[in-house]
């Protein structure tokens, strides 16, 4: 099943996970890739955990990614990346926004938000590679924090690990996001690419 591509997107309601999903699905459909996809939105309009599973490949039937079989984990929130640990395997590339949304228990002073360094070290042991940075900050510089998820999309595109090329993802993004937010999204996408180039030293 080498041609199977499993992409897991996790985050919190309202973070732009749906935009990411739409872009990847649109790019895949245009390319004629067969796929199955699944969203777990829970009951939350806002503030709850959100998970999207995207699977591409001719032999894919279920929309559930098997444990340890994610090729990519895109985490819009660090706390949600931890929750998805079951899906991380030795082949998993993790792209993560490090600026977390605090759960109520943290706001109320009952819990402490997970320590980022401890988390990244854990994820590095579990997965193949971890690319973690403050995507909210990059999105803000690009024009709006609304575009945070598109920063991570830019990184996915630059890493060239999906069965979709950088240009296919880019074009699908341009055609999918609302026109009035296009400029900030283009800037966000490029910022995500640049972040990877910095790490890869190119």
């Amino acid at each position, binding site marked *: *099943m080498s041609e199977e591509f499993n992409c897991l997107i996790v985050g*919190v309601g309202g973070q732009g996970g749906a935009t990411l999903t739409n872009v990847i*699905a649109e790019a*895949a*459909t245009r390319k004629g890739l*067969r*796929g*199955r*996809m*699944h*969203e*777990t939105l*829970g*009951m*939350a*309009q*806002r*503030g*709850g*955990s959100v998970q999207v599973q995207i699977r591409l490949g001719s*032999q*894919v*039937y*279920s*929309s*559930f990614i*098997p*444990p*340890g079989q994610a090729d990519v984990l895109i985490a819009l929130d660090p*706390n*949600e990346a*931890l*929750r998805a*640990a*079951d899906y*991380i395997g030795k082949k998993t590339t993790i792209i993560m926004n490090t600026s977390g*949304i*605090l*759960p*109520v*228990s*943290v*706001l*109320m*002073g009952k*819990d402490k*938000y*997970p320590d980022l360094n*401890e*988390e990244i070290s*854990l*994820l590095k*042991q*579990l997965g193949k590679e971890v690319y973690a940075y403050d995507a909210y900050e990059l999105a803000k510089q690009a024009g709006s*924090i609304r575009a945070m998820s598109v920063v991570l999309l830019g990184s996915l595109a630059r890493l060239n690990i999906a069965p979709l090329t950088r240009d296919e993802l880019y074009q699908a993004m341009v055609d999918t996001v609302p026109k009035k937010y296009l400029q900030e999204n283009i800037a966000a996408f490029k910022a995500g690419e640049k972040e990877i180039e910095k790490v890869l030293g190119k």
Partner: protein
Amino acid sequence: MTVIGEEGTTKLLLGNEAIARGAIEAGAHLVTGYPGTPSTEVIETLAAVAKETGMKVQWAVNEKVAVEVATGVAWTGLRAMATMKNAGLNVASDSVLSIAYSGTEGGLIFYVADDPATHAGMAEQDDRLFAKFAALPMLEPSDPQEAKEMVVAAFEISEKNKVPVMLRSTTNTAHMFGDVVFGPVKKLNRTPTYSRDIRRYTKAGPAWCMEQHASLIEKTKKAGKDADEFNRLELTDSKVGVITAGAPWNLLKEAMIRHGLNVSTLKIGVINPLPEEKIRKLLERVDSVLILEELEPLIEDYVLRILGEMGKKVKVYGKIDGTTSPVGEFDQAIVERALGKVLGKNLTPAVDPERQKLIEKAKSLSLRRPITFCAGCPHMGTYLSMLRAMRKLKYSREDVIITGDIGCTILGMNPPFDACWTEVAMGASIGLGNGFERSGIKKPVIAAIGDSTFYHAGIPALIDAVWNQTKIVVAVMDNSIVAMTGHQPTPGSGYTTTGEAAKAVKAEEIARGCGVEHVVVVDPYDVEKATEAFVEALQYNGPSVIVLRRLCAITAIRRKAIGKPLVIDEEKCTGCMTCVKTLSCSALVPVGKKVRINPDVCIGCRICAAVCPVKAIGEGSQHE
């Protein structure tokens, strides 16, 4: 994604969107239902294209009404569908069972979406049993393409056999995206006709009822045969067989590919009546059979019965021997474990214990996110006022029973409010509250119910409160939208499902009409007035209704009908965290020892300003 497109177009559609496309292709005249996860998207999808298709697309006040409206249309010879979640079928069931006896003229589908693993809360009820109970034919798809095909076929089969057809999905299929190839769109242009036939359309007398019952049984049998193409039998030379239906079929198929398995399979698409012949054929071939079905052992019970009749010894793996659980939904691991058990092989990937430890550690570090009210949610104002009124009257938390209801209002059960005590069913907050009061328990009762829930099933219980002189406070939390399922209009919204202006049904008018004498309408953003309203109502000797009216914050944001973000005066803020601890509003962010307001999230509701003990929160201009 839009479901408009030429024949032959391929689109990635959600299961529910595919069902919507099926209704368009079949030329349905009307689709109605009540919002409920995971069924909601069928009507949302159809409403978005209603102008292009000319279809009547309408949210109903509840599922029972939806089923009745769809049936009225179908009895005139046109095609119609009613959609609902599992719990909704319970509400509709009285009419469904009776309608089944009369049958139909035009194609009629009742679509129900079940929810193994209760992603959307409520019971894990298996509505495949309902089809048996109602003696109605039922189809169940495994993916979006099949869902669309089944809708088109179900309309034909319903019409041909003059019987309503149930379509059942589960969350996994309803919310799965998959490729769907569009078929041709039928233009039916039928003229509605209906003739009086009381022998068929009434239940006057046992003779007619039994005649109708006998006819229903025959019709359902025939309908099952007509849908037999959806039961797919693939026999191999293996002595092991697997029978499955719905979402688990996808998991089975993948496991077979992954492990190169050659077992015989029967993929059942017709849940009622089950395909006896094909089941027999498979059982003749095998020594052991695995039944892969989520929730109840419906197919398994039937297989055991057939085996009894055949007098053949076949080892059956399923729920009864504990191979799979009747609780929750299936995933790859469950299916591989079950297959491994039947085949006597280990198909489960080896687990590295060290690695598993790391995974468990990662998961243990992640914090739960109990869902909370959105920033600016008017329900925060309601619960804050309710609790404040209780304190003013010297009641402790344990002194007042607060019955909760279905929808966003129930989030009041979670921290930081910890207000609601119960959650039973749509409208049950009032009926249950009436019961608590009549027990003679020395605790006042407040029923906390949303506007749509009130219209749906709360009104009869309110009449009961008036009739039986019950001292109860009913808080109708009117945000003028069905918020939890994605902001569908309610009878109080003032517009229809497709956006045309409509008369708004007002909760206060209903309450007065029901005979409630103490009725007030307040804005939950006005915490002082709302608190006063609860104080008065709690002291009132009889049923009282407080309508707390303020548009849902998310809807307000979409309509750009929101206030300016507030700011916290850093000098005044003492860092006492009262605002954060009382409201846990996502706009309030602790920074260091003080609190700041996130201007991207705050909509200026001012509820926090009413909470701050040092009056540090206000409009920006006052402080800058």
